[in-house]
């Protein structure tokens, strides 16, 4: 088990009129190598939860264990926790600051005290993983790049720390459809190639459906749903009540089945829907 939360509470501004319980008795377990989608509307506690996972925030109550280390223990070194859990914030390109792309990505590994050879290797590997051409781009300023490419540099900077867990908060926000697909493909590639656990925070149900194996749904500071992607997206009504939704294609299959047509309604992608509808059309023709 790589992440375990036991009865975690977090209260903002305790003892003031603005007191707000942002996390309410959270119990979660994540196994190594899982690809998790974290969804919930704004204010549901998603970001608060994510910031607890690398020790940026401390729980008011309860305990958090990351890769066997209890974050509340005095012996736990936060530096090692933050190296294990890499967090890519929303609009991470705002955090780029170095003169060259190489230096920006090398900043984290250098601070780990690694040798120059190791830093160099990590920068090369990270750039390759996110699809940035090393020789062409290493000496360029990150600020000359397009939005999608800047974001890749920021992700590469986190990957270069070789985290065991990678958390991405809305990695496609503000990108156009092509930029969004490219970034999601890179994330998929990182997941397939590296021995890594990924938590993807997103408002796009289509993106979540395409990538993750398991979904956590946050609602009013609690984990309202936790299960395999297909199972969670079969609960359209519950999700809609929480201000969320399901992918349009899932919604369509459900509505189509609702008309009395014999089809599976737990599809997640266009490819799955295509297969299901083709079978349906063929069987209708044969009948």
């Amino acid at each position: 088990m790589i992440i375990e939360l036991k009865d975690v509470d977090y209260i903002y501004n305790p003892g003031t009129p603005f007191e707000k319980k942002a996390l309410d008795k959270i119990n979660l377990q994540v196994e190594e190598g899982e690809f998790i989608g974290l969804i919930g509307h704004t204010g549901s506690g998603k970001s608060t939860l994510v910031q607890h996972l690398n020790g940026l925030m401390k729980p008011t109550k309860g305990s958090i264990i990351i890769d066997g280390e209890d974050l509340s223990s005095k012996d736990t070194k936060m530096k090692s926790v933050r190296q294990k859990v890499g967090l890519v914030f929303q609009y991470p390109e705002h955090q780029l600051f170095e003169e060259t792309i190489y230096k920006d990505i090398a900043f984290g590994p250098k601070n780990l005290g690694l040798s120059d050879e190791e830093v160099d290797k990590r920068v090369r590997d990270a750039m390759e993983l996110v699809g940035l051409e090393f020789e062409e781009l290493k000496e360029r300023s990150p600020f000359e790049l397009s939005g999608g490419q800047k974001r890749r540099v920021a992700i590469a900077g986190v990957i270069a720390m070789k985290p065991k867990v990678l958390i991405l908060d809305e990695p496609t926000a503000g990108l156009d459809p092509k930029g969004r697909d490219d970034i999601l493909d890179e994330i998929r590639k990182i997941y397939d190639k590296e021995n890594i656990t990924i938590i993807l925070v997103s408002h796009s149900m289509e993106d979540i459906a395409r990538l993750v194996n398991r979904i956590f749904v946050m609602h009013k500071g609690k984990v309202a749903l936790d299960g395999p992607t297909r199972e969670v997206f079969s609960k359209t009504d519950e999700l809609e009540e929480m201000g969320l939704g399901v992918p349009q294609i899932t919604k369509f299959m459900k509505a189509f089945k609702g008309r009395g047509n014999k089809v599976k309604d737990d599809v997640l992608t266009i490819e799955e829907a295509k297969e299901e509808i083709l079978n349906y059309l063929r069987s209708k023709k044969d009948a």
Partner: protein
Amino acid sequence: MIEKNNNIMIDIQNVSYEYSSYIDESIQLAVKDLSLQIERGEFFVVLGHNGSGKSTLAKMINGLILPSKGDVLVNGMNTRDEDKIWDIRSTAGMVFQNPDNQIVATIVEEDVAFGPENLGVPPAEIRKRVDDALEVVEMTDYKSHAPHLLSGGQKQRVAIAGILAMEPDCIIFDEPTAMLDPSGRLEVMETIKKLNEEKNKTIILITHYMDEAVEADRVMVLNEGEAVMLGTPKEIFKQVEKLKSLGLDVPQVTELVYELNKEGYNIKDDILSVEELVDTL
């Protein structure tokens, strides 16, 4: 002498916009010889990948930047006419992506009053405009709240009310839902549709969300500063392959129909919604 057509809200005549590249200072064209007319009361959507010239176009309509070549007329007024610039900006208001960058005051109703105050509107009239604008965006209950404590969708609606209080005929929205969650997006889209249908405002919406574009009267696709597609949502979205080659997307149900037709079926190819497809199949 250009003849004034009362039905045309925005008239873009052979407009180009040049800028010099950051990298090698070469001259680039963000918008290339674009001509377009948007009618009064129209709901017009602009699509295109990042860097296609969408925002440059929006800023030219509101007179924030002037075309390098050609003319932009807003309700018959040329944006080159310095004497008209304030009339132009109060005719064509603009709402941006990030609500946090658009809110100036510490109380919702004061924020909404900021625009009309600057136009020199008398106080009694300001009071009325602020109340009306908050009513339209359904934020009356929050009028004495602090904007920073509101949700993203609510903040964006306050920003819209601030523009409404200047009583523009036309509102340009530059990716107004890009930073919002699904329920915030829905709130803002409902507000935009209401402004168009009930208040008869001309709407120009720049977006990356195809489900928002399907609501429009007409859609224009920009690529490298040129209008490569222009038509009703049905005419545009059935061209699945072309849109994908331009780095854009189509609604999932439209793509499903496209995939089925590739297998030899002959389903109506201009389906945009779940309901339409359920009825058709």
